[in-house]
C-alpha cells in the first residue's frame, strides 16, 4: 500500500512558518509555536470525538514537544518524507498517534482532511503509527519500549556514514518501565551517539495510576545521567525552553531531555487526571474543551 500523498500547499506554508520561527526573536517564535500547538490540540480533541477512541491525555501532554521538534528544530521536508538526509523522528509512545498525525498534517506530510478518517475502517491513520502508510513515520510503534532502540540504530547509521542528520525520539515516562529502553540507553552512551536526543514526556501518569505509585522512576534525571547521557530538564510546555534543550549535544554524549509536562494540558478538567488517559469526552465536554482551546 502506498504512502499518503503530501499536501503541497500545507507543506509550503510549513516551510515558510518554520523558517520564520527559526529566524524571529524569542517572543514572536514562542507566540507562533503556541498558536500551532493550540491548532494541534483542537485537532486532537476533534479527532478523538469523531473516532470515539484515543489517548487524549498523553496527546495533550506531548503536543508542545511535537510542535517544537517539527517547527522549531528538525530538518524535514514533508514533500520528501524519505529524503535521505532528513532528521529522524520516532514517537515511541505510539498511542499518542492523534497528536503526531495532527502535527504531521499541519506540516503538510498529508492533507489535514485525512485526519477525519482517524481509526475509521481501512484508514491509513491507525490508532498507532504505521510507516508503511503514513509519511513522516519512521517505525511502527504502539508496543512500548521500542522507539529508543530503533532511534539508537538510526543514530548509529548516521555516525557510520559521517552525516550530520539527527535522531529524535519521544518516550512516555511510564514506558521507561520497559527494560528495553535501558538496554538502548546503555548502547547509545557506549557509542557516544551525540546525534541522538531522547525526550521524555514526564507527565507522571500512566494508564492506571501515577508512575511513582506504580513503579517509581525518580530520580529520573539521575538514572539517565548514570547511564552516561547528557541530561536537560525543562518545562515541557515552554516552547523556547524545549527548543533550547533540543539543540545538539554539548558533551559528545547522547542527550536526554526530561520534559516536565501535564497530562491533558490545555483542557482544565483533563489536566493531571488519570482517567483521561484514554477516556473519550462526551459532546458537552468536547464543546468545553474546544472553548478552552479557542486560542
Amino acid at each position, binding site marked *: 500500500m502506498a504512502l499518503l500523498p503530501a499536501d503541497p500547499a500545507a507543506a509550503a506554508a510549513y516551510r515558510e512558518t518554520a523558517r520564520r520561527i527559526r529566524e524571529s526573536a524569542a517572543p514572536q517564535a514562542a507566540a507562533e509555536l503556541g498558536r500551532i500547538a493550540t491548532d494541534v490540540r483542537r485537532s486532537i480533541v476533534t479527532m478523538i470525538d469523531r473516532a470515539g477512541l484515543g489517548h487524549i491525555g498523553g496527546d495533550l501532554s506531548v503536543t508542545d514537544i511535537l510542535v517544537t521538534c517539527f517547527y522549531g528544530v528538525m530538518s524535514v521536508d514533508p514533500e520528501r518524507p524519505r529524503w*535521505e538526509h532528513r532528521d*529522524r523522528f520516532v514517537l515511541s509512545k505510539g498511542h499518542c498517534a492523534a497528536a503526531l498525525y495532527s502535527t504531521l498534517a499541519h506540516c503538510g506530510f498529508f492533507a489535514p482532511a485525512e485526519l477525519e478518517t482517524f481509526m475509521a475502517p481501512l484508514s491509513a491513520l491507525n490508532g498507532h503509527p*504505521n*510507516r*508503511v502508510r503514513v509519511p513522516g513515520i*519512521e*517505525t*511502527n*510503534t*504502539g*508496543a512500548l*519500549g*521500542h522507539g*529508543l*532502540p*530503533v*532511534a*539508537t*540504530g*538510526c*543514530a*548509529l*547509521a*548516521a555516525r*557510520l*556514514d559521517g552525516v550530520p542528520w539527527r*535522531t529524535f525520539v519521544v518516550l512516555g515516562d511510564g514506558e521507561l518501565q520497559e*527494560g*528495553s529502553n535501558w*538496554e*538502548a540507553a*546503555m*548502547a547509545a552512551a557506549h557509542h557516544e551517539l551525540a546525534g541522538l536526543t531522547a525526550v521524555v514526556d514526564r507527565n507522571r501518569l500512566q494508564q492506571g495510576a501515577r508512575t511513582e505509585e506504580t513503579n517509581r522512576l525518580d530520580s529520573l534525571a539521575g538514572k539517565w545521567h548514570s547511564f552516561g547521557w547528557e541530561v536537560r530538564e525543562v518545562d515541557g510546555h515552554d516552547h523556547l525552553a524545549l527548543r533550547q534543550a533540543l539543540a545538539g549535544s554539548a558533551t559528545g554524549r547522547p542527550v536526554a531531555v526530561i520534559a516536565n509536562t501535564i497530562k491533558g494540558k490545555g483542557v482544565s478538567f483533563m489536566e493531571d487526571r488519570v482517567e483521561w488517559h484514554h477516556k473519550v469526552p462526551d459532546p458537552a465536554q468536547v464543546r468545553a474543551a474546544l472553548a478552552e482551546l479557542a486560542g
Partner: protein
Amino acid sequence: MTVTEEQAVFDCRQAFAGELIALARQDERVVAVCNDSVGSSNLAGFRAEFPHRMFNVGIAEQDMVGIAAGLANAGKIPYVCAAAPFLTGRALEQIKADVAYSEAHVVLCGQSPGMAYGELGPTHHSIEDLSWVRAIAGLDVIVPCDPVQTRAAVRWAAASGRPSYLRIPRFKVPEVTPADAPFAPGRAVVMRGGDDVTVIAIGSLTSRALLAADRLQAEGVSVRVLNMPFLDPLDEDAVVAAARQTRGIVTAEEATTSGGLGAAVAAAVVSLHPGPMRILGVPRVFAPTGDNGFLLDYFGLSADGIAAAVRDLLRRG
C-alpha cells in the same frame, strides 16, 4: 540425490560467515549486529575486516533487533546474528513490530537452531522459533539444509529488500543440494523423485530423509524427497502435487510439531488435497539431556524414524 553416512559434513555457520564477508566486500550497506556472539556466530573474520560495520550490543536482544531496524531505516542491510533461541524468544515483539510490520529490511540470522545446544537444555534449544516466526506476517522464513543453501540464503536476503529469518544450522550436515536446484520463495527442491510416498524435510533433517529414502528403496518403496528452503512462502503447488501423486506425506523438521513445517504442509494438504500425513518433529515436550545427534534420534528424527513413519503411513494410511 543420495547421501551416505560417510560423506563429509559441515557446520553451516562457517558457510554463513564466509558468504557474509564476501557480500560485505561487494555491498557497503551490509552490517552485522550481534549480542556478545562474535564467536558463536563466527563473526571474528567479519569484525577483523569491517570493524566499523560490526555492532556488538552485548547481551541485549531487544535492543539488538531494534537497533537493526534503525540501521535499516538509514539504508543499511543489517544481518542480526544471535543464537536462535534468544533472537526469537527474547526479541519476538521487536521482530514483529520493528522489523516485519515496519517492513524494515533486516536479515535475522538464527544461529545454532533446533537442539544444536543439546546438552545445555531447553533454555538453549530453539525448537519453537519456526512456529513463532511463521505466525508473523511479512517475514520470509528460510531454513537452509546445507552450506549451498546457506550461501544462497545470505545472498538472497540482501537482494530481496524484505525482512527475513534465516535459520543457520550448527549440527553438521552433508552437502545435498543439487547444482541446478532452485532457491526462490515458494519453490521446493526435488531432492529425489519417487511415486509411493513423499517425505518433505527441511534443515538438518534433509540428509536424513535421503538416507531413509535409500533404505526404503531397498525394500521396494519409492520415496519422493522434497526440501523447502523457504518455509514461508511455502511451495503449495509441490505439496498438492505430492498429495495427489503419492499415497501420503511425511514431514520432518528439527522443531516442535506445533507450528513449523508439518503444520504448514498439513494446512495446505487439508485445504487443497486431503490425504494421509505423518508429522515428525519434537512433540510438545522439553527435551531430556543429550547431545544434538542423540536428541534427534531420541525423537525419531533419524533415517530409521523417517523410514518407520513411511512404512506406517503405507500400512495404515
